[in-house]
């Protein structure tokens, strides 16, 4: 299993340079602009890199070969979830360091609470997206999964926008804000729970899959 996680890291090696450039550009933006934060962008970049590892696996028929190795289908799926978590974790840490440095450099106050709450929101959002996306990819493959991801994200955004026009969510938001401290624990826990459920579904799909 460790071998497969290493493989995912080796696969992103080649586009690491372009990602560093993107990060630098965003860092400059965040130093100039207001309310713009690198720590959001980085986990999204991590997800994009993660998705690219799936594309490589599929494009070069690695999936059938992986089954022939002494790893087991369950561990093949597990390695992908672990890769995803490590990718996001590393991106988050780098994001926090850059944010910290840029705020110090631009002599602003480093408000850890604001940054963390933004970050937690991002991570929860990403876990939900991944948790839905991964089983779909295991079932239908990367290409269809990509289309479904687009459609899904648009549907959610559209739904939220429509709902917020129809109903007044101020009280809900206020209620959530009052839960501040609870959410700090609840969000990471629910992210983990969502990922675990998604993993179990993916394993069920993958155990039956033929290549």
């Amino acid at each position, binding site marked *: 299993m*460790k*071998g*497969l996680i*290493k*493989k995912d890291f*080796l*696969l992103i*090696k*080649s586009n690491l340079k372009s990602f560093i450039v993107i990060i630098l550009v965003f860092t400059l933006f965040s130093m100039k602009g207001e309310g713009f934060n690198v720590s959001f962008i980085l986990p999204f970049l991590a997800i994009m890199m993660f998705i690219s590892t799936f594309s*490589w*696996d599929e*494009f*070069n*028929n*690695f999936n*059938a*070969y992986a*089954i*022939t*190795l*002494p*790893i*087991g289908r369950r561990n093949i799926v597990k390695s992908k979830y672990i890769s995803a978590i490590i990718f996001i974790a590393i991106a988050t840490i780098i994001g926090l360091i850059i944010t910290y440095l840029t705020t110090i450099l631009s002599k602003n106050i480093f408000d850890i609470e604001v940054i963390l709450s933004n970050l937690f929101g991002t991570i929860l959002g990403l876990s939900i997206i991944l948790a839905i996306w991964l089983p779909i990819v295991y079932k239908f493959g990367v290409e269809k999964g990509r289309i479904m991801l687009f459609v899904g994200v648009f549907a959610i955004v559209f739904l939220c926008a429509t709902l917020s026009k129809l109903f007044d969510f101020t009280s809900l938001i206020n209620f959530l804000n009052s839960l501040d401290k609870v959410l700090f624990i609840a969000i990471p826990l629910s992210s983990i729970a969502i990922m675990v459920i998604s993993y179990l579904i993916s394993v069920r799909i993958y155990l*039956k899959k*033929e*290549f």
Partner: protein
Amino acid sequence: MKNAIEINALEKKYDNFKLGELNLEIPRGLIIGLIGENGAGKTTLIKSLLNIIKPSKGKIKIFNKDLKEMELDIKEDVGVVLDNMFFQEILTPHDINTIMKDIYKNWDTTLFNTYLSEFGINFNQTLKTMSKGMRKKVEIATSLAHKPKLLILDEPTSGLDPVVRNEVLEIFQKFVSDEEHTILFSTHITSDLEHIADKIIFIDKGQIVLNELRDEIIDNYGILKCSLDSFDKIDKKDIICYKKNKYDYEILIYDKNKMNKKYKDFIVDRITLEDLMILIIKGEK
């Protein structure tokens, strides 16, 4: 342990194709050539052996261990080359080593490096910049570097030029020389098998039509050639199958020596695996 692989009542059904029911024993220490047309079921059989696809029914034992129960244990000792390229093309042989040493317990980096050097392959070159033959060599080196007892190879020589193909076949021969190791090797390039296979398994339309030692095939089967009007002189029960050409008949016969004596007026030719394959598939009964 006499057999490397034992297959019992194996069946795999698809909408438009069915493999089996197959019963097959693959003895240890030999090179077994799996031949057949494209779509005859070679890859389906190989994929079933590796659990890449799930058979509809039947039992597979490898090294006398049940494939379902001891899959990972078995796979530690199996080396595989699949018909399509299967490593991500942006990886280098060096990367493959980094990955594989954490996957196989017995992975031997030195051995892997030795194979690559023998093949003249650059460790830090990405696969996409390599020729098809070089990539195949990287795959073959990978399949050998954990010192497997069984190699399962799906069309390992297709797309290789004759020189490389010879190199590869030599490696396979070296691999089985200790009589413990087994190779199951599918191909439609039958001339490869004439050089190295000890035993031939011939699959047609999902069924095994022939499973014999190569030498026995070459010694016993023959092609009897006769002109269009003398076909009736041949005893019907001597004809396994035949093919009508423009000017003559080609008849597949068994027991070459006996037929030579019986039909003194006709020529009985040595058979090649290719002739045999074409006659059995295309011939009439």
